[in-house]
């Protein structure tokens, strides 16, 4: 059923009984043209664009748990296009353009809310760095405004401007950034892909690969073997494990990132704010809770939970920025496992094994990438060549030296 004013009305007068399931709970067929492993936002978007843009409709998405149970349902929902390097800017801007039309495209309310993201600066060098980044963005047609202290004070009077160590001097404002409802994105892509014939197979874990000589010809799963002309991996924090089953080593470490939600309060924070002197970012959900996070825990982890030092560190960052949250109670905290790549940037490419394709290395920032990642990965799978917007995200860049290191910290995943 398409959602419309009429469908709402019809359900309103019939006690909400006419709704049908948003997608079929499919059982796997013995073979597909393409199998996408991982039912997060990236996997589902890939399947959707494969069907929609490339006419490849005999597709399955296999997910070991339920769709959205990974990082797609664990992130702090920030979407933005304020990157600074040439390989990144066109890709993230393409993603932002897709976000801007996503709800109409999917006929689904993903609660995309472009209420702005403000990166605060606290020193002259940091202002210069943000001015440079803002200029790079504007040269690529992305919006960016450098605000001074008084302009920030007008927007967010409750911040601690006179913090003794890190006084706020201004901020880089990216008005088109904001948040989207992460589950809504997953469900929207799942429903739209399902309508194009994609099978979404939940509770189906990939445990190995089927090979025809050198070629990857399908996957072994807990629901039996599934043959496939092409296999795409979009398994976020588990990429190394899946790659190891195929005999590949990746430039990836798995790290945990935590996120937190406070009790609900009245509207306080209009957009997304990031603290430039430490690592802290915060927005307010539509239910009123403050949603925030900071650094990763910093060591390899596959446990979807974090440790206390980072909880303390994140809360200190929050307190330094806005002391008024000091008496708020923390309702929940959780962790997600991300692929931290060796240069902090993603990989969307063919693998060295024919038939196997990689979508990995999203580090902190993969949620905002969801639409463009699906778009470009579908292109790579269907056409066997990189999409122009993702041409920099090649796997061999680590060997050739064409790294995309936004933070310039070297091959240290825990510093990205």
């Amino acid at each position, binding site marked *: 059923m398409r959602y419309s004013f009429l469908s709402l009305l019809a359900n309103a007068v019939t006690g909400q009984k006419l709704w049908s399931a948003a997608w079929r709970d499919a059982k796997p067929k013995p073979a597909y043209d393409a199998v996408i492993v991982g039912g997060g936002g990236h996997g589902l978007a890939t399947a959707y664009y494969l069907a929609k843009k490339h006419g490849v409709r005999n597709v399955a998405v296999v997910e070991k748990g339920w769709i959205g149970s990974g990082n797609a349902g664990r992130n702090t929902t920030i979407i933005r296009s304020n990157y600074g390097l040439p390989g990144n800017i066109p890709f993230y801007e393409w993603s932002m353009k897709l976000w801007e039309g996503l709800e109409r495209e999917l006929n689904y309310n993903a609660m995309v809310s472009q209420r702005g993201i403000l990166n605060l600066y606290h020193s002259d060098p940091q202002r210069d760095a943000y001015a440079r980044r803002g200029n790079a963005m504007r040269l690529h047609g992305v919006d960016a405004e450098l605000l001074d202290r008084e302009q920030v004070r007008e927007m967010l009077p409750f911040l601690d401007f006179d913090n003794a160590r890190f006084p706020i001097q201004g901020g880089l404002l990216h008005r088109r950034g904001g948040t989207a409802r992460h589950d809504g994105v997953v469900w929207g892509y799942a429903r739209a892909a399902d309508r194009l014939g994609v099978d979404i197979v939940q509770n189906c874990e990939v445990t190995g690969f089927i090979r025809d000589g050198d070629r990857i010809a399908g996957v072994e799963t807990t629901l039996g073997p599934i043959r496939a002309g092409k296999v795409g991996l979009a398994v976020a924090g*588990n990429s190394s494990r899946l790659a190891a089953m195929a005999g590949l080593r990746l430039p990836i*470490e798995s790290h945990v990132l935590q996120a937190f939600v406070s009790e609900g309060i009245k509207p306080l924070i209009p957009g997304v704010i990031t603290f430039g002197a430490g690592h802290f970012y915060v927005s307010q959900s539509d239910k009123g809770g403050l949603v925030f996070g900071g650094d990763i825990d910093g060591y390899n982890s596959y446990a979807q939970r974090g440790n206390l030092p980072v909880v303390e560190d994140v809360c200190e960052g929050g307190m330094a920025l806005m002391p008024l949250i000091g008496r708020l109670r923390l309702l929940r905290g959780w962790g997600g496992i991300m692929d931290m790549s060796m240069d902090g940037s993603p990989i969307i490419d063919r693998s060295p094994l024919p038939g196997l394709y990689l979508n990995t290395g999203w580090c902190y920032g993969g949620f905002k990438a969801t639409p463009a990642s699906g778009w470009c990965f579908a292109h790579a799978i269907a056409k066997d060549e990189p999409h122009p917007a993702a041409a920099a995200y090649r796997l061999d860049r680590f060997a050739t030296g064409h790294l995309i290191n936004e933070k310039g910290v070297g091959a240290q995943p825990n510093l990205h």
Partner: protein
Amino acid sequence: MRIPCPYCGPRDAHEFTYLGDATVTRPDPAAPDAAAAFHAYAHLRDNPAGPHEELWYHGGGCRGWLRVTRDTLTHAITGARFAADSSVSAPSVAKDPS
């Protein structure tokens, strides 16, 4: 998470800095396959889900480098010793001839 430093005793992970996988060893720059070997050394990782050998620096304590065995699924630590005592080959130091 507490790391049992062989010199200082069990200390909060806060006191340590993480370097990463302790099993990668710096290749010989004079070897014919040095470019490929350095790429693997700098970038490629096993990244196992389970026991992991890793290097931690005890900057908030004895300032020693430790080789720690930690389970990446549970965060449980089953061993910690000084990296210099480990089987990882340390760069050899030329002896003073005198």
